[in-house]
């Protein structure tokens, strides 16, 4: 017996349409009978097809936009640099400050494009699951990310972490994003402390990165993992608002979940789970 067997049925005019068939046994006095429910799922199939097509279009759009924005950006940066280098005697202090502002904005835009591109690429990639030594991976990531924040002394509390089966490149990206965030948002603390630990919950291995930094307002936590959503000022903490959305996308492709807890000025804790 079973449920949800998808087949094609024939209409009176001879055309085919998709159906779902469920069979179940019924015990009666006259012996076992089979009950069959045949459901017309044409509209569901049409919606699925439309959704797949829309997702593909969205990903193609994001890729093409990010890609085509790079050339003019290079032009802006390049020509502004030429202005600074070759016309330096004709530029007064204010003019030089202005070219600096132009270049800063282009750097930001470049980062945004890179993040968007990574986000869209994530949607197209196949997940290849292999054995991941989480302890080693996390130590490597911490070493790599710490190089960008050499002047910040972090108190690392890393507990033994469970090994998982996952796509190593993208799980690495998850750790990079969460650990970078933890460093960034606790960088203003006198004694920044970051804890990384794991536990089992049913059929999922759960991991968390906890910091004692600036935290976030719990009432906005549903916005955390959405693209371009930020809960902090760019003047205090730079960022593009794509990092956590990428984490969410990667983990959900693995069949896991992401969630977070936080309190303003009392730190934050970011969780993700991966099926065993």
């Amino acid at each position, binding site marked *: 017996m079973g449920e949800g067997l998808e087949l094609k049925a024939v209409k009176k005019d001879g055309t085919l349409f998709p159906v779902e068939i469920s069979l179940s046994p019924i015990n009666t006095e006259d012996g076992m009978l089979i009950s069959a429910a045949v459901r017309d799922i044409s509209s569901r199939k049409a919606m699925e097809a439309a959704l797949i097509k829309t997702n593909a279009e969205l990903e193609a759009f994001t890729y093409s936009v990010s890609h085509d924005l790079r050339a*003019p950006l*290079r032009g802006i940066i390049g020509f*502004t*640099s030429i202005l600074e280098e070759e016309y330096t005697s004709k530029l007064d202090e204010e003019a030089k400050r202005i070219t600096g502002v132009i270049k800063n904005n282009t750097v930001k835009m470049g980062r945004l494009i890179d993040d968007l591109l990574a986000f869209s690429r994530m949607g197209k990639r196949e997940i290849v699951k292999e054995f991941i030594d989480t302890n080693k991976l996390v130590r490597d990531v911490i070493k790599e990310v710490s190089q960008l924040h050499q002047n910040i002394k972090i108190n690392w509390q890393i507990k033994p972490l469970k090994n998982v089966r996952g796509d190593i490149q993208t799980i690495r990206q998850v750790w990079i994003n969460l650990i970078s965030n933890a460093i960034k948002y606790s960088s203003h603390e006198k004694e920044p402390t970051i804890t990384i630990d794991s536990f089992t919950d049913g059929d999922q291995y759960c991991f968390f990165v906890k910091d004692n930094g600036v935290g976030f307002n719990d009432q906005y936590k549903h916005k955390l993992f959405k693209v371009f959503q930020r809960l902090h000022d760019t003047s205090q903490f730079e960022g593009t608002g794509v990092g956590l959305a990428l984490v969410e996308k990667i983990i959900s492709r693995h069949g896991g979940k992401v969630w977070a807890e936080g309190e303003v000025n009392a730190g934050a804790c970011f969780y993700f789970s991966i099926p065993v």
Partner: protein
Amino acid sequence: MNANSVEVLLVEDNMSDAELTIRELKKNHMANNLVHVVNGEEALAFIFSTGKYQETRSAIIHPKLVLLDIQMPKVNGLEVLEKIKSNPVTKSIPVVILTSSKENPDIEKCYSLGVNSYIVKPVNFENFSLAIKNLGFYWLLLNQHPL
């Protein structure tokens, strides 16, 4: 400079990118004999001495280096690469792809067509300058050209 003493053929449809590239090569004294064409059709006419270059170019004198963008109108970089590398007369001309695209189908396709090198144009200006300077030095000075 006459059309037969060309060292670098720059095939680039984006005028800003072309200007930046030529500027950087000039800064390093590598742009004396440079010709810039704006699409693949003109590039092929130049290399094979057809169309508008029929009278002025000899098809057996080759540029030392072809810098080729991929996305261009009319005839794109992949088609130009294919035509250059599949012709016994021109296939030994060093062709370096200089593109914004870091995407895999493009990279694999170019190498399978026999490209000599594939460079992604950096957005950051310092890196861009360095890349052009390095590739100019390598392909025009260091590299031994096909005789």
